[in-house]
């Protein structure tokens, strides 16, 4: 469904993405992992056309996305930091985005699941971080689209909401949706991801299933596996 082909991106002196090639298959939940500044968000943004690769290409359904916009009808993106116009109410926002996308959306069930219905008529700038994140989630799941991209979806969520999110993700997978997400919570990843891509300083250090990464690093948990990958890389650097 999505292919990153030798994507390179440099911001000033910083090589953010270095020859990144990844395939994401349809109906698969892929987690992109990596420490802060490893290029996860930038990678996602190249798919969304928000960041334009210096070289390489990004394909969606076999076609390059660069310079195009219509393909985004089939993608919903939930950004890391909730980016909303501040003086809209939640309801206004939920009604605005479908209009801008020219797509119908159903959010009645979703707002109940996340408790958003309780503050539907509050303005965005009156909401707490957690509340915003819930609105963010509703926005992400209210469209019937094949690809959902979530950047740190668990940020600021209370445990009940996280549970609800997990449930939701499983349901979506059953519907055949493709999901790409990033997260710092390794438990969450271990439970939710079919495949893992590990990025370090813009380079893909690992791609495969959870089992494969555990095997390869000889670890018992994903947390351990990731830590060992980071350390290993540091050693290589030290020797070099």
């Amino acid at each position: 469904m999505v292919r990153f082909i030798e994507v390179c991106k440099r911001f000033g002196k910083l090589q953010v993405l270095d020859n990144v090639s990844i395939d994401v298959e349809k109906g698969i939940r892929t987690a992109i992992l990596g420490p802060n500044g490893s290029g996860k968000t930038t990678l996602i943004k190249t798919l969304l056309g928000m960041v334009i690769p210096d070289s390489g290409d990004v394909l969606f359904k076999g076609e390059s996305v660069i310079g195009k916009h219509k393909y985004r009808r089939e993608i919903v993106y939930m950004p890391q930091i909730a980016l909303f116009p501040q003086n809209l109410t939640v309801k206004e926002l939920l009604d605005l985005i479908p209009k801008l996308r020219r797509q119908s959306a159903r959010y009645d069930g979703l707002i109940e699941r996340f408790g958003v219905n309780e503050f539907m008529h509050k303005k965005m700038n009156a909401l707490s971080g957690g509340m915003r994140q819930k609105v963010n989630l509703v926005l992400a799941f209210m469209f019937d689209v094949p690809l959902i991209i979530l950047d740190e979806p668990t940020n600021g969520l209370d445990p009940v909401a996280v549970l609800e999110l997990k449930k939701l993700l499983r349901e979506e997978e059953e519907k055949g949706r493709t999901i790409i997400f990033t997260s710092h919570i390794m438990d969450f990843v271990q439970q939710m991801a079919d495949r893992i891509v590990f990025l370090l300083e813009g380079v893909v250090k690992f791609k495969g299933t959870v089992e494969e990464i555990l095997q390869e690093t000889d670890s018992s948990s994903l947390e351990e596996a990731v830590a060992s990958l980071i350390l290993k890389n540091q050693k290589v650097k030290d020797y070099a």
Partner: protein
Amino acid sequence: MLKIIGYVIKDLLRNRWTLFYLLFYLLVGFAILIFSGDFSKSTVSFLQIILILTPLIGTLFGVMYYYNSRDFIELLLAQPIRRRDVFIGQWLGVSVSLGTSLVLGLGIPFLWYFAQYEVAGDQFVLLLLLGFALGTIFTGLAMAVSVSTDNKIRGFGYALVLWLLMAVVYDGFLLLALIAFRDYPLEKFALIATVFNPIDLARITILLKLDISALMGYTGAVFREFLGSTTGMILASSVLILWMLLPFALITLIAKKRDF
């Protein structure tokens, strides 16, 4: 794009600054008409507002609105909307709101005045149109500047410098040039120089209405040709419209290459 323009306008309607701007114009409009004694003096005062303030306010609003809605812009960019449309939509939305404030803010006092005294309305309508155009151009230029830099302070700085250049400094240099090269034929140069500054262009357009008696006293042939007919006004206003396309091109171009 229309939806974005519509959204921005709605957004600005709730914005305190838009209201402030409208009230400011209302106040200034009434003040000028009441206190300046006669209409021709008011027209000159309005002219200065149109030439100096509308570009400034356009600049400030352009920068402010862009940086304040950067989050929302990112949200929009992730939607199936053409990149150009996102930015142009923002620009036009802000311009239309500002322009409406201007037209209402100065138009209402004028209508009130017009109801009492018999004065020529065409000059005033021209002033409003030019104000609208200048506001739009400078909002666009400010946005182009803002889109090209993430640093808010720097963006503000550049945009203000651009305004200052166009509104004041440019004419200073033009005057210096005219004095320095006074021994050469300068007609064409002087005319062409105004084309490169939308504020000057707007000024010349209104001069053709306001000061035609004086302009007709000018000796040069090219000048007379240009100023002495309606061609001059049509030409000046069409170049002004071309100027409105410049931010469009700039924003499209800059936005195309930017990462968000």
